[in-house]
């Protein structure tokens, strides 16, 4: 095994194990922390794939913002030290069934396309050396290049603007006139 494979396995174990903790832990706060750890593992995958920009963005967005938001929500709404959250509700059987169905689907798909999948990746991607060397620069350029992704990029900005205006509109306290 190469060192990369060892790191991959460690990261995979961290990501999956903490993912399991998220859904099984009775303490909501601990579950949120486990989710953060899971996100961290995903950031590790990005590093392993030599996509440093994505890794840093993953840390910044998922751990620095989204998880904090979730933890804030828990802090504001739950009693301190409450550990009696049940991870099950009345629909857990249906949820389990749905999860198994989708999990089975994914496994089936991966197993059945395993070999052609590899070919497709090789056929469609640029030579890795170039991509890795300049990945951040390429990413940045492709966002503002009219011949690549400028329109999704701009639409995403409009989307964020809309979300920003909307969240302020909702959060603003009611003013009696």
């Amino acid at each position, binding site marked *: 095994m190469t060192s990369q494979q060892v790191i991959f396995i460690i990261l995979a174990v961290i990501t999956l194990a903490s993912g399991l903790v998220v859904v099984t832990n009775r303490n909501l706060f601990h579950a949120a922390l486990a989710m953060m750890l899971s996100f961290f593992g995903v950031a590790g995958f990005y590093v392993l794939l030599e996509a440093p*920009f994505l890794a840093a963005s993953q*840390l*910044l967005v998922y751990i620095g913002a989204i998880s904090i938001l979730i933890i804030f929500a828990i802090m504001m709404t739950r009693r301190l030290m409450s550990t009696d959250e049940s991870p099950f509700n009345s629909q857990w059987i249906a949820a389990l069934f749905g999860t198994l169905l989708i999990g089975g689907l994914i496994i089936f798909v991966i197993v059945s396309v395993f070999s052609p999948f590899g070919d497709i990746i090789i056929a469609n991607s640029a030579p890795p050396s170039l991509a890795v060397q300049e990945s951040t620069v390429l990413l940045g350029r492709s966002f503002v290049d009219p011949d690549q992704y400028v329109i999704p990029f701009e639409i995403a900005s409009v989307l964020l603007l809309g979300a920003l205006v909307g969240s302020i509109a909702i959060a603003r306290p009611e003013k009696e006139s």
Partner: protein
Amino acid sequence: MTLGQIALRALIAGFIMSLVVITGFAYTTLLERRLLARLQARIGPNRAGYIPLPRKGKRERRLLGGIMQPAADAVKLFFKEDATPAMVDRVVYNLAPMLTVIPAILILAVIPWAGPILGYEEYFAIAPGIDVGILFILAITSIGVYGVVLAGWGSNSKYAILGGIRASAQMISYELSLALVILAPVMLAGSMNLNDIVVAQEGGWYVLFLPVAAIVFIIGVFAELQRAPFDLLEAEQELSSGYNVEYGGMRFGMFFMAEYMKMISFSAIAAVLFFGGYRGPFVDQFPALGLLYMFIKIVIGLIIMIWVRASLPRLRYDQLMGFGWKVLLPIAVLNFLITAVIIVLASEGIIAFPI
């Protein structure tokens, strides 16, 4: 170099730099106490350790009084009883100090300390070659919020959780402005690699081109470090001491350590982004001089932080949030926009600007 050698080198360099910075942390506390005392017309701790200079006929002269004070403090913290309150959430309670210190140390990884010395090809840093160094710093800083939040929640105490919420809200609010002004040097240098930013300042420090960004950055750093005048979460009168009220002994020491290490690393980042980093006279001939320049710049940064603490009163909480969102953030956004426009105009040759 193979991957293994790079990893080993980073490990050794990281270990040494961490030790240096931890020592630096210890002496920063001393610097702060002595300087603060001087600014308040007191003397400060001057008893623990000194260098005796015997003089004829008179009593010996005591040089650098208080030089062992940090060691004494450390010994005290280590031997203090490390009491854990009864009803805390143990996992979170124990995790919090670690999650505070780890990011503080991790930031050091990408800071370029000097030019090509000690067999480093381009520049001396623990992890050279991280092209997204700035983003790495921002990401790690944002993880730093966890320490505060977890300490607040895990302590199972009203004061702690209020302090935790205050502190994290403050850090998140000011992180935005901080991130936006950091983009200005990035745009000017055309790289997120910290060394490229330093090299790009050969023609002049960025503080000259981007004075607004530098000022906003420094204010943001004060808020991020929760130092005066933004040390609301430690508002003793209201919150006893904020999120770390339930911690004692070395666990408290870790929070303390993280704060001062962050002071050092943010001074270093400020030096890199706006004050030419390790560059200075004759640094091209003698790259090792870079270490000295970095040291001087960091110490000046620390002195300014302490000076501000001694001079300015604390803000009220609503003033703090209002200032962050309504003043600093718009300035940061405008600064970003104007810088971008000027850079594009200059690169198209429409206006003359020395970049």
